[in-house]
């Protein structure tokens, strides 16, 4: 492990490349990137760490927000498992914590459903959308493309703070519904629809299907103030994500440094770019849907409420709305959202696999195209969430065939990951373990899309535990493995210290085994017919044979959850006590590893933007002095790499042929 912190001086070679880059239509080639006055670092604590416009600080803020949210969401999932496994058991601690939700220590069904809803909302929005994109993307996209900051630093700061407001509003739903005192204040009663029902927010699931979510208190507990705050929080989150997406796209297109052509970008940048495009197109639709739902709830409109509804023998005055309209709008967002969660994980995994395999990414160009294909197709398959919704069954067939075809680019990515590992010299560091875990879990979770994507098979399998297993494995756990890989990989750059390898391994093994133990049995539950979102399985005889599996899943969940505290401890401890990290501890190739200091200075490159000479994954280049060649190493110093890769991260033919030629 050696220091690789040489500041990059402009050289004659740089000028030459600048001309090349200009030919490639590269925007940064005009030499617009000299150090700017506004990039002098702030000095006050508040401007530096709280209301910071530094993308790196904002990235860490996002990451900390996501870690906090993840632990809240995980705590909720453990509570759910306890209720499902020991129905009716008295948990004294529960009564202490939630006197309304668990009177006598026994969870009420509405409390359980509010856990379902809040767990889903917190995890999908504030963890899976926040950490991989807002966290790592914010921190590393500008550095990896060689920019001093995001294109719009103030907007960037705003998008974080708006996200935080969204989380605070969501969490406040817990209190207005969970407390009779807060739930009965004038404000809550008059403006939010009334609370204090002993839940932790709404009970309509994270998908919030109307009319259940649109009618307010008459639809049951949790549907008053909690639901209002819940949908408000989602609308706020949409705005934050939009701001973030604009920034990502602009930065990536306009602020790449000399020589950083699109096809020389690390795959992480491609994944953040694709994700940002998805977010830009998907979130406005959810925002619109959210506003319409709020109007239905509070302004007496009927966008999603049909005529003739009867509650307590009284016919509601609403007319003409369509519950299915919400589902179209929601899933038009909701399906791309799945890819918003997983694509950055794919990028990080490709990046990390290549680094520790000490081998170029197999099929870089195919990886880029596959990522875009997934993103594009992701917009045409939302109907597969709705086969049995009452939508026109002919439409379902089109959605179904398109859905199955999305498996093709996903398979391409898997093949290319295996291709990257084939013939490698793998260094089994903790980030590499998690990246390999990602591949395993992505396959395990993604492949069952072949079952769920078929209209016919949804006749039985829809809305059951098979779906739950599928999406938790792929967009939940695989995506989180991508995040863990990212944390362990980039921690040294972000905090200047290494995370403990030993504690990291201790975290990886039980987590990897644990998530298989939780989610594979859930497929079986789905095959037997277990429906989702049931507060108890005691009512149905046909679910009895599943009791041992329910127990197994709960034990696995508790073990897995416990193992996450090893991570938390490692994360906090290493921040202060970890071994000091060198500038490029992993001997990696991309620009985040050539910053003059670690963590990088305020303007990332100390006033001298790097020049890029080659693709991102030049490992194992024959005749090069080391087994890795930095993107910034001029051709003359890099041995024969120029002859091999011509400065482009593109595929040649199979690698063996190259060895003999030089």
């Amino acid at each position: 492990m050696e220091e690789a912190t040489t500041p990059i001086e402009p050289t004659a070679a740089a000028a030459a490349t600048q001309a090349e880059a200009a030919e490639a239509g590269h925007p940064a080639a005009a030499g617009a990137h000299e150090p700017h006055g506004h990039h002098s670092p702030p000095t006050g604590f508040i401007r530096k760490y709280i209301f910071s416009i530094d993308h790196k600080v904002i990235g860490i803020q996002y990451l900390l927000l996501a870690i906090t949210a993840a632990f809240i969401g995980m705590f909720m999932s453990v509570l759910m498992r306890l209720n499902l496994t020991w129905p009716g058991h008295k948990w004294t601690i529960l009564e202490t914590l939630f006197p309304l939700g668990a009177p006598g220590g026994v969870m009420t069904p509405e409390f359980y459903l509010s856990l379902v809803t809040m767990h889903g909302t917190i995890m999908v929005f504030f963890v899976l959308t926040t950490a991989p994109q807002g966290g790592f993307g914010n921190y590393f996209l500008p550095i990896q493309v060689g920019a001093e900051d995001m294109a719009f630093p103030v907007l960037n700061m705003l998008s974080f703070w708006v996200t935080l407001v969204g989380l605070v509003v969501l969490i406040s739903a817990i209190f207005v519904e969970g407390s009779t005192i807060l739930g009965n204040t004038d404000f809550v009663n008059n403006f939010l629809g009334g609370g204090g029902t002993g839940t932790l927010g709404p009970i309509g699931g994270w998908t919030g299907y109307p009319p259940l979510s649109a009618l307010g208190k008459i639809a049951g507990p949790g549907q008053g103030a909690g639901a209002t705050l819940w949908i408000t929080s989602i609308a706020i989150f949409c705005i934050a994500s939009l701001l973030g997406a604009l920034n990502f796209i602009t930065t990536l297109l306009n602020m790449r440094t000399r020589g950083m052509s699109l096809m020389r970008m690390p795959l992480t940048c491609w994944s953040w770019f694709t994700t940002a495009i998805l977010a830009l197109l998907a979130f406005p639709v959810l925002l619109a849907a959210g506003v319409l739902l709020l109007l239905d709830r509070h302004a007496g409109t009927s966008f999603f409420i049909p005529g003739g509804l009867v509650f307590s023998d009284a016919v509601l005055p609403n007319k003409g709305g369509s519950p299915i309209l919400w589902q179209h709008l929601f899933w038009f967002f909701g399906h791309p959202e799945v890819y918003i969660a997983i694509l950055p994980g794919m990028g990080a995994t490709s990046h990390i696999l290549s680094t520790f395999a000490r081998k170029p990414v197999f099929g870089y160009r195919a990886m880029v195209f596959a990522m875009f294909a997934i993103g594009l197709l992701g917009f045409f398959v939302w109907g597969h969430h709705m086969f049995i919704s009452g939508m026109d069954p002919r439409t379902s067939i089109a959605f179904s065939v398109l859905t199955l075809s999305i498996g093709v680019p996903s398979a391409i990515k898997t093949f290319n990951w295996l291709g990257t590992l084939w013939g490698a010299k793998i260094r089994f560091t903790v980030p590499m373990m998690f990246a390999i875990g990602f591949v395993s879990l992505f396959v395990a979770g993604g492949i069952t899309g072949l079952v769920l994507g078929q209209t016919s098979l949804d006749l039985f399998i829809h809305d059951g535990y098979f779906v739950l297993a599928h999406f938790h494995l792929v967009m939940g756990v695989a995506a989180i493995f991508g995040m863990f890989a990212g944390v362990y990989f980039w921690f040294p750059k972000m905090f200047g210290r290494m995370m403990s390898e030993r504690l990291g391994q201790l975290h990886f093994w039980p987590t990897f085994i644990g998530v298989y133990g939780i989610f594979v049995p859930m497929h079986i539950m789905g095959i037997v017919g277990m429906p989702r979102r049931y507060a108890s399985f005691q009512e149905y005889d046909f679910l009895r044979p599943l009791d041992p599996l329910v127990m197994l899943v709960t034990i696995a969940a508790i073990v897995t959850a416990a193992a996450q505290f090893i991570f938390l401890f490692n994360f906090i401890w290493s921040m202060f006590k970890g071994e000091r990290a060198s500038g490029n501890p992993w001997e990696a190739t991309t620009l985040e590893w050539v910053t003059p200091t670690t963590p990088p200075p305020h303007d990332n490159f100390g006033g001298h933007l790097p020049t890029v000479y080659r693709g991102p994954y030049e490992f194992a280049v024959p005749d090069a002095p080391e087994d890795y060649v930095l993107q910034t190493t001029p051709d003359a110093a890099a041995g024969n790499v120029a002859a091999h890769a011509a400065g482009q991260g593109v595929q040649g033919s199979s690698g063996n042929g190259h060895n003999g030629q030089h």
Partner: protein
Amino acid sequence: MGRALGVLIWLLTIGSVWLFVNGRWWLPPYISEHGPAYDRQFLITIIVVGISFVAAQVGLGIAVWRYGSRGDRRERAVYSHGNNRLEIVWTAITALIFITLGLMGQRVWAQLHLNEAPAGATKVHVVAQQFQWNFHYPGADKTFGRTDPALVKDAELNFVGLDEQDANAKDDQVVTTLAVPVGRPIELTLQSKDVTHDLFVPELRYKQDVVPGMAIKMHFTLTKEGRFELACAELCGQLHYKMKSYLIALPANVYDELVALPQAQFQGRITQLIKEYPMGIKQGAATTAAR
């Protein structure tokens, strides 16, 4: 480390496959005409999924087993940026398999959803409400009486808002259990009074949302007698998990006698049938009754 990880990946693969093949847990037995076709397509898909899953995990395991670094700083991995021919081959193969599977997966769906129920199908209206299923039978005249949401009076047991003044309503029956004949096409019309529900009978191999504001039709033919649990499969609120009823599949003649009963005796007979039919497929009964 690499070898341990490789072995772990294989063990997890074996464990996962075992859960699927041990024979202890699988789809419940089917009771409908489209059941065998459903089960066949499900099995074919699971086999394709299983083979792909195992192949990928075994490959991953082999890679991490074989290609670990020995810690020698002079060692180099194979220098390769990929192989276009391989990319084309594996893309073509997966596209062929996945899309074929996708097309096959439309058959049962098309058969149930792109055709109307045959003429003369037995008709029942399903009216869902928060945490209760109501089944409305047309009675001997085979014509449904008029209903109106304004007439709903739960306390007087008029759950579906049946207009007692309507001549066609005189012989209608409304109960909370679904009794239907075996061997005859059945058409259910699904309506909801309040929020979205979903009618789900595992053995039927059919799930259909019940959406307020819509009257969604579903049709199927039963092949086996018995009594089966009927659940709500779309989150409908607080007591969603308790929104339970039964489907009783009766021989055609028993069904005919049932629907000929006057309203006063109908509920009593249903209660009797629930007792007569233990849960599950009725043993010893003819599997396909006469059409």
